[in-house]
């Protein structure tokens, strides 16, 4: 709707996919990178309690007696890092899927990956199981399995006929799978006890308070792999977002590019959702905000969204944990309440 349509074929410069952009890329990354780094450095300094930084970093106090250090290193730092990782992963997955599906409404949750992850998490929350796979505790492990299953089903449906993935089939299959899995989630919740329904409902709202580094260690490799794959994508995304035929005529291996886009976005989404639950809105509002600011070239939009997504979610979580303290607001509520109006304001101003 917004920027994707403006890149229709007639207005496409002949070599838009490959035009030199080094200068702009550098300045964009510098700008958004500074924003992300500053946000991540400031966020652990603030919280519901005020701590003394000199005490927190005083090595002469034993760690198990240093409340300030524990608040900084056990409560806040992993939480901020999780926010950066999840925000970055969701925003990038949003960019990739919007381009690949040629649909500005696509989000990382459109293709059923997050619903699969949620069903996995619900099953463990409600029917139990306190197993752990290394640093991965039961709920994240199950949500990864659910996400993988949903990804496999959607891919199988969309790639059965023909050479390239049909984006419309992919979209319809994803949306249908989403509804189907949501129904299963409701059914599972219906069978549950009150206490478990509580926890299940809370998980669905999304939460970054991970309380240790283990969940981060478990998710980091997945996100890194996803980002390496993302790095291969931008030029083909530029062409794919115009159309399959246009992309093919300019030498893009459409099937390969689509597969890469689909699996990398699914991987990033699965890692993010298993770490923090399905935090909404980041995956749609950040890419569009970034496009409004830097244009439509995915070589710039993708890294800028990754960095801005990190800053955005860390900032939203900062508000979530301080605004009503000691009570916390679910971070998904904050992302929607801050991101929505701001996005609409930008939209109206721009047009």
């Amino acid at each position: 709707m917004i920027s994707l349509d403006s890149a229709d074929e007639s207005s496409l410069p002949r070599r838009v996919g490959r035009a030199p952009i080094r200068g702009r890329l550098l300045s964009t990354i510098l700008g958004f990178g500074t924003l992300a780094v500053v946000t991540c450095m400031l966020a652990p300094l603030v919280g519901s309690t005020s701590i003394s930084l000199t005490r927190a970093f005083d090595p002469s106090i034993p760690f198990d007696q240093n409340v300030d250090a524990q608040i900084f290193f056990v409560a806040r730092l992993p939480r901020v890092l999780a926010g950066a990782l999840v925000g970055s992963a969701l925003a990038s997955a949003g960019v990739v899927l919007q381009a690949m599906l040629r649909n500005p409404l696509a989000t990382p949750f459109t293709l059923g990956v997050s619903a699969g992850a949620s069903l996995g998490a619900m099953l463990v929350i409600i029917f139990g199981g306190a197993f752990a796979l290394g640093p991965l505790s039961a709920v994240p492990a199950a949500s990864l399995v659910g996400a993988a299953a949903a990804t496999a089903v959607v891919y199988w449906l969309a790639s059965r006929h023909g050479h390239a993935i049909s984006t419309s089939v992919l979209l319809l299959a994803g949306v249908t799978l989403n509804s189907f899995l949501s129904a299963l989630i409701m059914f599972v919740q219906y069978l549950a006890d009150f206490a478990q329904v509580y926890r299940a409902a809370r998980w669905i709202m999304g939460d970054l308070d991970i309380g240790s580094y283990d969940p981060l260690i478990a998710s980091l490799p997945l996100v890194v792999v996803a980002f390496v794959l993302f790095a291969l994508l931008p030029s083909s995304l530029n062409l794919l977002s115009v159309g399959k035929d246009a992309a093919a005529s300019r030498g893009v291996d459409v099937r390969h590019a689509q597969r890469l886009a689909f699996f990398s976005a699914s991987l990033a989404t699965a890692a993010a959702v298993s770490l923090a639950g399905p935090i909404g809105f980041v995956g749609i509002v950040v890419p569009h905000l970034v496009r409004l600011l830097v244009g439509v070239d995915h070589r710039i939009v993708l890294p800028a969204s990754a960095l801005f997504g990190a800053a955005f979610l860390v900032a939203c979580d900062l508000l979530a944990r301080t605004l009503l303290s000691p009570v916390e607001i679910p971070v998904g509520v904050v992302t929607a309440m801050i991101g929505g109006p701001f996005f609409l304001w930008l939209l109206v101003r721009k047009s």
Partner: protein
Amino acid sequence: MATRAQKLVALVALAFVVFSLDGPRAQEKAPVSAPRRIVSLVPAITEMLFAVGAGPQVIAVSSYDEFPPEVKALPKVGALIDPDTERILALRPDLVIVYGSQSELEKQLERSGHRTFSYRHGGVPTTLNTIRELGVATGHRAEADTLASSLQSRLDAVRDRVKSRRQPRTILVFERQPGTLRDVYASGGVGFLNDMLTIAGGSNVFADVSRESVQPSVETILARAPDVILEVRASGLIEKTTSPERDAWSPLSSVPAVRNQRVHLLTGDYLVVPGPRLAAATEAFARALHPDAFK
């Protein structure tokens, strides 16, 4: 989920309104006598009914009811968000016990001429008052008074026993993601869990939060630094994994409860139902908080 179920309830209720508009109006309220066909949709109340001797009058219970063992043989007619109105009506009850939030169901039952008894969880005094009220409503006034008084004196005994001791600052956790410190739910400064904790000689670290439950972040738990972590769960999964569950707290080594190994895990349905077993639960809390007082 809840809203969907509520919609369903509303829909069913609506159907009945339409039905009863042109049907003959149900009998006006029958003269109040001891009910002989009681349906209880609230497990805590079911326990109270059996404890005051009204058990034989109970003909159906909620799908969450498990205590006393007699209820296992009774028909189950749904629960808080999914009461099976049709079955309830078909059982021809003369008293239906509903939860305070089931106002649609209550209205509908009253419209069709059924007596209802509406209840909401509150503090320990609420439970004792409710026992007395149920005694009056079911024709077991004397037994109910005896029960309420004996519970009161057991609670008083606990209070007296621990009164003179230092009250450890306690977090009372009733839910959390197993094996992690995520989604921790703790008792706030009101409600029966808070009352029981206070009687048992604990000082709730969330006494200042005037809600029944708090969902503290790791930071908040570190900052409130409780002396004791008291975890209560209905029996089930957690029993098999007691030791790793205690280990879940170990990253928070600056919390006195963790440093001094005062993380207590109590399991049992009786701990989390505000019914006649709350004195036993309070005694269990007190034993965990003040082991020396019970030597």
